[in-house]
């Protein structure tokens, strides 16, 4: 202890006034390095292409078409999500809409429905819903809550005094909305839209089922046909670049938006606008929205569940042992992934809250970078990496858990960090002055106080892992089938009834965990997706 402390003590200047314990720093660096690993490896692989070839590879009809598809969908989905999300938020937060509390909960619930389940539901409802139109419907249904949540929070945070001032200066209701309310909502709106764009870029399963070609589906196709190589890495880098641009944009607008809301003290609540007769169209709109986002997935899964097994137009008939095995695999990997992500996030969260400096900020930002790396890129990089360098890890359960930990580290980190920041340092010092060593402090002070936050982080990661498709599809050990891969396999062969039991269990796990988060683990829970 003293040796380690004196060794790190020399670096005191680098880590702020007080030096973080060396093992914690090492663990935090390890976590951040793990996030950089797949991107770094993809870049190294891409350097195998000469500059001229790279230009040839990037400037060709395929890339153009992928870009057109992706950007087109992002633009369309941003518009629909922004409109639906902002409108829903306004009705729930600012009007006397009947049952607005219930609508508020229902408006967020679609986040618990994995997009590819939603896509399975729509595809099995009608074959005509494919390609662009299908993708737009599915993406809008799945991701409009990413706009709804921040805009609703911003609306709650708006100071009604500003609107009243505008009215007193002669603005009409509409003038007030466009000149006062909307500008203040802008950071939340842009932040939400950028998250929609980011998730659209990284989505794979939903598009694959809809036969909509984007970067992710193309990368998967290249891998399947054995065409993956430096060219694939190059394509992956284009995708990563788009994602990171969205991520940085989101960070920027969110940063600005947050500061704008700080320092308000206690405010009066805004007056709720009376809807009068317009409440009927508003209610109809909400009903339609919930029907599309929750009704269709739940309804279609229910419908196919009730069909006779013969309707399963595939040899993979649903069988109970198969369902049980897949459930166990999903839950098992979910737990392992959650544990791994929280274990990686804990030292990072600790040193960034206790020893803030530009180095720890750098480590933290690096970890958040994982949000901008699509699962397919991580999976492909890890496959190449293990095949070329660490063969025994290829298609091992450990590698898959590592992939989950990398992908969902940011979500764990948000919760862990919030939990750690809420524990005043004085408490740890009080415990140490009472004779407790660092381990006893962690066990008797930190663990009980950060428990709910860590639990929330773990639950979020659990839901994501238990419903994760892309990396599982590519990295799972041979013979391992999870709920997600079963749904995917059956749906790809149009065996909708066969897919239904797996989809039903997935939805059950997801909705139950989300309910647990919202009710038991507190508001911290939603910070991850906010």
């Amino acid at each position, binding site marked *: 202890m003293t040796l380690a402390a004196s060794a790190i003590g020399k670096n005191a200047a680098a880590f702020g006034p007080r030096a973080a314990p060396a093992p914690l720093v090492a663990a935090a660096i390890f976590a951040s390095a793990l996030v950089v690993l797949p991107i770094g490896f993809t870049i190294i692989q891409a350097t195998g292409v000469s500059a001229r070839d790279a230009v040839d590879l990037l400037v060709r009809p395929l890339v153009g078409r992928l870009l057109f598809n992706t950007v087109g969908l992002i633009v369309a989905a941003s518009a629909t999500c922004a409109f639906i999300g902002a409108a829903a938020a306004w009705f729930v937060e600012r009007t006397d809409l009947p049952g607005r509390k219930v609508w508020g909960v229902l408006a967020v619930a679609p986040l618990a429905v994995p997009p590819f389940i939603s896509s399975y539901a729509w595809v099995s409802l009608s074959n005509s819903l494919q390609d662009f139109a299908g993708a737009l419907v599915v993406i809008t249904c799945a991701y409009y809550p990413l706009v709804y949540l921040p805009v609703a929070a911003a609306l709650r945070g708006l100071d009604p005094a500003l609107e009243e001032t505008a009215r007193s200066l002669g603005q009409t209701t509409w003038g007030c909305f466009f000149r006062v309310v909307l500008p203040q909502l802008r950071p939340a709106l842009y932040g939400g839209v950028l998250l929609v764009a980011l998730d659209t870029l990284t989505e794979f399963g939903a598009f694959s089922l809809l036969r909509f070609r984007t970067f992710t589906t193309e990368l998967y196709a290249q891998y399947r046909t054995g065409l993956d190589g430096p060219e694939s890495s190059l394509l992956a880098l284009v995708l990563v670049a788009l994602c990171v641009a969205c991520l940085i944009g989101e960070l920027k607008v969110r940063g600005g938006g947050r500061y704008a809301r700080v320092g308000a003290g206690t405010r009066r609540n805004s007056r709720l606008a009376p809807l009068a007769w317009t409440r009927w169209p508003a209610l109809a709109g909400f009903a339609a929205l919930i029907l599309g986002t929750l009704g269709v997935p739940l309804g279609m899964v229910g419908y196919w569940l009730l069909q006779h097994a013969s309707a399963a137009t595939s040899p993979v008939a649903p069988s109970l042992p198969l369902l049980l095995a897949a459930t166990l695999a999903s839950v098992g990997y979910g737990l392992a992934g959650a544990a791994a992500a929280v274990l990686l996030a804990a030292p990072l969260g600790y040193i960034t809250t206790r020893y803030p400096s530009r180095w720890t900020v750098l480590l933290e930002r690096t970890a958040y970078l994982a949000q901008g790396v699509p699962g397919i890129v991580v999976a492909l990089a890890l496959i190449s990496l293990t095949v070329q360098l660490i063969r025994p890890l290829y298609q091992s359960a450990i590698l898959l858990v590592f992939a989950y930990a990398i992908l969902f580290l940011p979500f764990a980190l948000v919760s862990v960090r919030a939990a750690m920041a809420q524990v005043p340092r004085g408490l740890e010092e009080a415990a*140490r002055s009472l004779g407790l060593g660092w381990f006893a402090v962690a066990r008797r002070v930190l663990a009980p106080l950060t428990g709910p936050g860590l639990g929330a982080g773990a639950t979020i990661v659990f839901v994501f892992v238990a419903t994760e498709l892309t990396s599982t599809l590519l990295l799972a050990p041979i013979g391992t089938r999870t709920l997600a891969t079963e749904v995917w396999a059956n749906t790809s062969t149009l065996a909708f009834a066969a897919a239904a039991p797996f989809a039903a269990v997935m939805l059950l796990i997801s909705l139950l965990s989300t309910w647990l988060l919202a009710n038991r683990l507190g508001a911290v829970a939603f910070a991850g997706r906010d």
Partner: protein
Amino acid sequence: MADLRIAALTKAFGGTPILRGVELVVSSGSLVAILGASGSGKTTLLRLLSGFERADSGTIEIGGQRVSGPSLHIPPERRRIGYVAQEGSLFPHLTVGENVVFGLSRAERRNPVKAEALLESVGLPASYAVRPPQELSGGEQQRVALARALAPAPKLVLLDEPFSALDAALRLETRQAVAVALAAAGATALLVTHDQSEALSMGMEVAVLRNGVLAQVAPPEELYRRPVDAALAQFVGEAVLLPGVASAGFVACALGRLALARPGADGPVEVMVRPEQIRLEPVARIGTVKAKVLAIAYFGHDASVEMLLEADTMPVTVRVAGHMAPRPETEAWLSVEGVVMAYPRSAPLVELPLPLASGKSPADKQRAFTATN
């Protein structure tokens, strides 16, 4: 309980020296108050003692055992130093009773009587043991924090501005309860504060920390009556400073010929008189000087009167009992009770901002205090 020896202790943060060689000896069982303006390094000193920070150089010995020195840094948990923080830092996930016994062994923690006895030792009812700390008032929380710090029988107790977050009435009551509990435990204690009345009333000795060194360590009365320099005199209480000439144990100044507390070299000096040493008299006597009332700040129990001496252009502040306060624009005669301090004056007297009758605000006082150093 043990004695504490601090020698040549230094600490810098990012190249800025905070402590520049602190020397202090606290004998076993006594309570020493460390008085300092904000930014003087008080909290840093406590954090070095408790082991949360590592000293750059110098040594700390507690009960003859060295806990900090060259290539030695005993971690906080092995120093056996109780620490009571400004905000109490009670564990929110534990009850009051569980908080109090937190530092004890597992077997002792199981004994419910232990927590109750400890609570009673700080003057709190035993029934508080089962309550969550959030339900207690600020003063009660501080007492619980003290009981928790005293529970493992530490060699030394450190109190970091434990009363500053409390309102005035609660502060007085909590101070008394803490003083009683510390005395009953026979604890060697170090109290850090920026409140001079708190330091003077609680400390058996008061150590004034200024610019990273202890400017003076003395019993409260000694510190107040005989501060080592003029700036210190202004920091600890209010001071009237006048130019004068010392000779043979007396000093001649605008307030007359006054006896020196500590006769020094003859020559030009700066004379320091406490405002309450100056008396207002209705009629002239031998040794009184005439003055006119400029302004009065009336506080109820006493009043601070600004008077312009006839013989001088500089106003002096006089403190009189509330019922003795004169009327503005009237005249009175001033006399000085007791002995006064004089400091060698090499340079012309620093022109300090004139104190208003109400006395300076603490911030002004701190500024003047640090500026003259």
